């Protein structure tokens, strides 16, 4: 089983358009996986983490977006990393494990010894090489990344119980109504190729049961909750993890670092800050520095794209990410915000706890801010693409859809 050239392959699930309404209005023109966090597209962070895995052969992105939406990114990242990165489009929903199975031939084409499976909208430190070592020690079929969260929030995720000595997964349940455990599933896994057999077993078993159902008229009267799923629709949580828990096949690896899910624009701001903080340790050259003499004053963790122009009298940070071709005028103050491509922020404006959309324009002495509650519906102010905030206008705790001009101040509003 151990060979000197064991190859590893990584699969990143990027999701798709019809289910992505929670990321509006930022998802109207850009697929969520390509939305920038700390200056890099969301999917770039797990991809960079995969690059640290020894003997990584290929990375696959699997999703429902059109191929052309990922074509440019995939070719440029393949060149940059000198590693094949491919985007595969699912033709119909197969479930979180079914998608992996559907593309098994391509995934297994180099006969890898291990397959990583990651969700794109997970924000964490991705300790993948350590996970792989642990997985090899455990000798099971799969190892999942887990983390302790507060007892109150655990019910939003997959809760699990693990043996504290062997780290074996003993019990797993998805979004339970009553408390099971404060240890939850991070959505990052490493498997041996046996996972494909396990998924196939689920499909075949379901097909057998469907055949049986046709025979029994009593079963035909069963309620909607036991409606048969298509045989090729296999969910990782309910169909693989829960049934195989406690059978010495699945193990856990606990991370002590940060972990968040990036479901809403508010969370993307929080996760951008987490990645910026991580850069301070892993890639400090990416962070900006400045003291107000020749370049703007920088406070805390800040990313500024090389093509952006920031006036030396501006003060930027902490937790600010500035994208390409942005122009920041004199005396501007930015705190905890993401400024997207081609934005112009005019003199003396203030932006706090906000996301300013591509090509928007923020007027002189205007103020765009929010309370900063990443989980509240209007906790972070979001300006969509090409929004103009006129001089001296105040925008607080609001969401503004693309192509709007605000010439009066607004608070706590969604502007269509």
């Amino acid at each position, binding site marked *: 089983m151990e060979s000197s050239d064991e190859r590893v392959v990584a699969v990143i699930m990027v999701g798709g358009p019809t289910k992505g*309404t929670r990321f*509006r209005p930022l998802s109207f023109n850009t697929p969520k996986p390509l939305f920038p966090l700390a200056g890099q597209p969301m999917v770039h962070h797990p991809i960079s983490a995969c690059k640290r895995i020894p003997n990584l052969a290929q990375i696959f992105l699997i999703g429902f977006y059109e191929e052309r939406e990922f074509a440019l990114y995939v070719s440029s990242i393949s060149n940059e990393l000198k590693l094949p990165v491919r985007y595969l489009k699912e033709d119909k929903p197969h479930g979180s494990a079914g998608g992996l199975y559907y593309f098994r031939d391509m995934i297994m084409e180099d006969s890898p010894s291990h397959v990583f499976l990651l969700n794109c909208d997970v924000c964490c430190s991705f300790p993948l090489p350590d996970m792989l070592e642990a997985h090899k020690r455990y000798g099971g079929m799969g190892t999942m990344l887990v983390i302790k969260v507060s007892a109150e929030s655990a019910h939003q995720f997959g809760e699990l119980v693990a043996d504290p000595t062997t780290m074996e997964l003993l019990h797993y349940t998805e979004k339970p109504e009553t408390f099971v455990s404060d240890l939850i599933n991070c959505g990052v896994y490493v498997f041996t190729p046996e996972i494909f057999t396990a998924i196939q077993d689920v499909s075949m078993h379901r097909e057998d049961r469907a055949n049986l159902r046709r025979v029994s008229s009593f079963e035909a009267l069963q309620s909607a909750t036991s409606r048969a799923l298509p045989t090729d629709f296999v969910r990782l949580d309910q169909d693989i993890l829960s049934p195989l828990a406690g059978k010495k096949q699945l193990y856990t690896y606990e991370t002590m670092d940060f972990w968040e899910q990036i479901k809403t624009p508010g969370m993307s701001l929080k996760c951008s800050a987490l990645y910026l903080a991580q850069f301070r340790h892993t890639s400090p050259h990416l962070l900006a520095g400045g003291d107000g003499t020749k370049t703007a004053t920088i406070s805390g963790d800040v990313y500024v794209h090389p093509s952006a122009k920031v006036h030396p009298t501006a003060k930027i940070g902490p937790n600010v990410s500035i994208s390409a071709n942005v122009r920041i005028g004199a005396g501007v103050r930015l705190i905890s915000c993401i400024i997207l491509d081609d934005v112009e922020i005019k003199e003396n404006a203030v932006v706090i706890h906000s996301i300013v959309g591509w090509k928007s324009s923020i007027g002189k002495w205007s103020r765009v801010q929010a309370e900063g509650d990443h989980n509240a519906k209007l906790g972070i102010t979001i300006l969509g693409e090409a929004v103009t905030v006129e001089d001296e206008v105040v925008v607080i705790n609001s969401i503004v859809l693309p*192509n709007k001009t605000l010439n009066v101040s607004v608070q706590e509003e969604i502007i269509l």
Partner: protein
Amino acid sequence: MKALILVGGFGTRLRPLTLSVPKPLVDFANKPMILHQIEALKAIGVTEVVLAINYQPEVMLNFLKDFETKLGIKITCSQETEPLGTAGPLALARDKLIDDSGEPFFVLNSDVISEYPLKEMIDFHKAHGGEASIMVTKVDEPSKYGVVVMEESTRKVEKFVEKPKLFVGNKINAGIYLLNPSVLDRIELRPTSIEKEVFPKIAAEQKLYAMVLPGFWMDIGQPRDYITGLRLYLDSLRKKSSSKLATGSHIVGNVIVDETAKIGEGCLIGPDVAIGPGCVVEAGVRLSRCTVMRGVRIKKHACISSSIIGWHSTVGQWARVENMTILGEDVHVSDEIYSNGGVVLPHKEIKSSILKPEIVM
């Protein structure tokens, strides 16, 4: 004869409907908004219509190809690269609007719905011999708009007053103009307002005349006015004894129903309802003062009033939808849900009631 329709920009006031199609293609009384105007122009002999747009030209052009052949009228687009205001687009389309005939050309604002008495406007224009004619309409609250002050006997326009504080008149610009080609010489290719810069100059030279629009007028660029506009439009159909209005024991007041729509037993439909192509209205449904767009299914016993239901949406059994609820494309309201003024963006499911007006993204 030529015409220009000012289509303009993003139609943000008609969101969420305009998140799915550009505003001129949003259906009104079962027909894309802009088709009402193009048909009126065709009827009085206009041979070419230029659409002045600055958004989604590909979508518009595809749609227009169909109608060019069906209607037998030439339709072209003039695309602004920067917003040119209400007069600039005329300068941009200059070459398309002028030919050797020296005939005047029409300019229409795309958000307006009216009876389009364009033949009468041509006669009016010839009779006064001036350079430009503008249609005006009487409103109850002129201070919300730009008022056109004119001499009653000659109909010569004296001046424009924007949102007057004191009463100066009750006629406002209805957004329908008939202009001599010489007007184009007055317009530079830059963002220009026809009301603030061009018309006042023509009025000062005593060459601008105003005709009072007979019949109804409405700017349907936002949902509340869209719903009022449908009432006025259907009312005018009734006055012309149109066969387009639906009849039957289940119909109350003015209602239009596309011939491909199906209506079940025990329904009560109307007043002021439009039901689009391919719609299915199941048994026991009550609809009043609402528009139901193409492909919508309204399930049994539901009740909808003063709302707009977007393309391919569904409204569940016993659901109650009212008070300016606007459902975007492909929105699915579950059974027994109540929506009081919910404004729902496309591709959403509504599984819990909306008790007070709210935007659902």
